[in-house]
């Protein structure tokens, strides 16, 4: 990457963007390979080394002390540079003016808005002498006008000869600000693009790729009996910056027996909250949930699970496993009140162990035994254990959040088979995935989630990943029809 440019790094979540950045910033060590700055090879032991080489990082989550002023926040940790008094203030004002950041040194950080805080973060790294700026998803927290202002700042920095690495998965923004684009997928560079001659469509194609085994499922098993009915779901949350944001807004849908409803969307648009709302792990502000005719809006999580909701969580380490417990105890987790795990109020370890052996066998969990801790299994095998556990209780509704993330190709096909098999037997599935092929291949119905709302729906039989991708970035809404037949749909089609 050349100096004086904005270089964008795009890729799906889990593609390796953050890992790459952590290596660049000295937070992780590479196994192989080299980094060269201005032709000189460098090795970073810790972020201090990276800072010394002129690399600065603006994190997605701001690292500012709210009760200190801007000046204090900036000099914190680098008091040696220009002291903490007048000289520091002069330097801050100088940088701020040079790049048009408009930062007031004496304002309290807690009084600043999100966009201002971000500028303080940028100033902080410039103050430390950074010549290469890494911005990790800087627009995730900004509203469109603020995004424009940020891009204006970035152009200013670029004009002064600084280099900016811009990480994002909002493709429209990337195209508008970047000079060069590198796309990574599954840990490798899959291509680079010139923003002047690329469309979001082509970029999405590069990002998603299509070399996976196809999760096709064509014969429809959808019935007319509703299994899960969600209506008017609304949830607001206060983010760490103290700003209240509506994370789920008027969500409503119905999943019938034998139906797979896929939800597409860039991560962080409310999918995780939707899952937690259905599982009963979060309080709703409004809305109702009905499972198989019964109102479960007020039911606690355990009741919902007993009533037949199976859950394959997005983050299996946080929500799906007890890492330091043996496999058979993990088999009990979430189903402690159900046979074979317990009889009355007592745990039945013998039966649980026996059933764990069965799951290990039937779901091909590669493990030397069921007494090893869950932490010692690979991610794919942990996932197979979770899938096996949830399927063993014959759920009526399966919530599958990224069911094949981090799973090898063989296990992926196997998990898809299990979902399809159960679906034939009348299982309703809510599928959330970042893998668009998986979504399109498995789902009977597709919805697109954007900023906490279901903004579009699509027919998986005809839609392409590119078309879905454009709706995920908010570029299209309504019913997404394949081909420019969009003419007949008022808001349909993709932007082109």
């Amino acid at each position, binding site marked *: 990457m050349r100096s004086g440019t904005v270089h964008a790094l795009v890729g799906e979540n889990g593609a390796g963007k953050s890992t790459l950045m952590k290596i660049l910033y000295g937070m992780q060590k590479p196994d192989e390979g080299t980094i060269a700055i201005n032709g000189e090879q460098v090795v970073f032991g810790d972020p201090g080394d990276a800072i010394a080489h002129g690399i600065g990082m603006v994190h997605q989550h701001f690292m500012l002390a709210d009760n200190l002023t801007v000046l204090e926040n900036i000099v914190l940790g680098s008091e040696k540079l220009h002291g903490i008094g007048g000289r520091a203030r002069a330097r801050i004002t100088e940088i701020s003016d040079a790049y048009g950041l408009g930062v007031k040194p004496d304002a309290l950080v807690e009084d600043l808005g999100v966009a201002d805080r971000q500028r303080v973060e940028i100033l902080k790294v410039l103050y430390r002498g950074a010549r290469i700026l890494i911005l990790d998803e800087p627009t995730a927290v900004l509203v469109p006008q603020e995004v424009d202002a940020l891009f204006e700042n970035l152009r200013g920095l670029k004009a002064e000869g600084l280099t900016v690495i811009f990480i994002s998965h909002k493709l429209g923004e990337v195209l508008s600000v970047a000079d060069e684009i590198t796309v990574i997928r599954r840990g490798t560079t899959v291509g680079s693009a010139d923003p002047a001659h690329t469309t979001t469509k082509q970029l999405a194609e590069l990002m998603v790729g299509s070399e996976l085994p196809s999760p096709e499922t064509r014969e429809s098993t959808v019935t007319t009996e509703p299994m899960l009915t969600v209506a008017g779901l609304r949830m607001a949350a206060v983010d760490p910056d103290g700003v209240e944001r509506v994370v789920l807004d008027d969500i409503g849908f119905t999943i019938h027996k034998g139906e797979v409803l896929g939800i597409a969307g860039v991560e962080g648009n409310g999918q995780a909250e939707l899952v937690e709302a259905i599982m009963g*792990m979060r309080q709703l502000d409004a809305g109702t949930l009905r499972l198989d005719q019964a109102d479960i809006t007020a039911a606690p999580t355990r009741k919902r699970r007993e009533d037949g909701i199976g859950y394959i969580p997005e983050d299996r380490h946080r929500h799906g496993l007890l890492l330091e417990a043996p496999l058979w105890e993990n088999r009990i987790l979430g189903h402690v009140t159900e046979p074979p795990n317990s009889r009355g109020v007592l*745990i039945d370890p013998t039966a649980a162990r026996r059933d764990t052996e069965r799951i290990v066998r039937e779901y091909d969990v590669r493990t030397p035994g069921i007494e090893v801790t869950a932490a*010692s299994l690979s991610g794919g095998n942990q996932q197979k254990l979770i899938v096996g556990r949830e399927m063993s209780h014959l759920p009526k509704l399966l919530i599958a959040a990224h069911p094949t993330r981090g799973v090898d190709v063989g296990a992926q096909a196997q998990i898809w088979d299990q979902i399809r098999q159960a679906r034939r037997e009348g299982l309703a599935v809510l599928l959330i995935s970042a893998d668009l092929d998986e979504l399109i291949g498995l789902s009977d119905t597709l919805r697109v989630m954007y900023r906490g709302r279901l903004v579009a729906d699509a027919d998986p039989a005809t839609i392409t990943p590119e078309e879905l991708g454009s709706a995920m970035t908010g570029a299209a809404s309504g019913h997404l029809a394949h081909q420019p037949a969009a003419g007949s749909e008022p808001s349909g089609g993709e932007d082109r």
Partner: protein
Amino acid sequence: MKKFDRDRVLLAVAAPVLAVVGALIVTALVLLATGKDPFHAFNVMVNYGDKSDSQVYILNKATTYYLAGLAVAVGFRMNLFNIGVDGQYRLAAFFAAAVGGAVSVPGIIQIPLIIVTAMLVGAAWAAIAGVLKVTRGVSEVISTIMLNSIAGIVIGYFLQGGRLGVLDKDANMVSTKPLPSSGHLFNFQTATDPVDGFIVFAVLAGVLYWFLLSRTRFGFDLRAVGRSESAAEASGVSVKKMVITSMLISGGMAGLVGMSTLLNESHDYGTDFPTGIGFTGIAVALLGRNNPIGIAIGALLWAFLERASGGLEFQGYDKEIVGVIQGVIVLAVVIAYEIVRRYGLTRQQRKVGAELAAAAGRQETQEVAA
């Protein structure tokens, strides 16, 4: 599979043994630095602690330490740091003594009445910290420390002539009204001093603790919260309810701590009622890895060390040396557990990886690391 089990037992024992050995080495160095012979000192400790009246003393002390250890361990198992066992048992013993002194019914009712009072008071006192944590997010560490002081003040207020206390003019001591003889618990007579009958209750409590935690659904939920709060929540455990319940159990268990003293020895709660056992309980629970048998061993060790300090004093050593040993053991135990835990985890991971790699060699698979 057997192999993994044996390894785990070995690892489990390794940490406390390492800690005790490390503590002895440090103590030996301290003794050397003060110009004393460490081996002679250890010898004195063993000989003195081994006498038969010492054995009785150790068993009786260990009974209270064991119960305190269990009370702390209940919290530890779900990552709750109940430092308030100290205040809980004192307040519990005080009110139990007051109730026991005020009524006189047959022993079959009197003794359970006293014990239940103690458990209820202990549980109620602990529940304050639980409720504060659940409703206001107050760290239980802070609130239980505060509640310890408050418990002391509450006792100080009531333990006065005219309130719940009786002033003994001759000894110039205040205590609650002595329990009637129906409130005296049986003892086991030995050649020397009697062994407190409450030791039976302590053993029962240990069995109950083991059963509750490892064999019941409730225990599984509790341990799940301790291992991963988020996973437990997703599995359907109400973490808040769990915090309150485990504080209640911990406090109830703490209520038993003072009972062997009250029912078997002093028969009243006076200004000389033993204090600080709650803190010993923390050390003992740490040493015993929250395991009912481990805690028993820890309690016995602690009681032994305390007894041995008396022997050291007779021989002209500073009895504080035992304090040094105890302190170093606690420090060493924390460090040793963490080292052994990490070592065990990575070793198992490596082992599983190796076994699977061997299997994968036979049938080609491609695994994408997660």
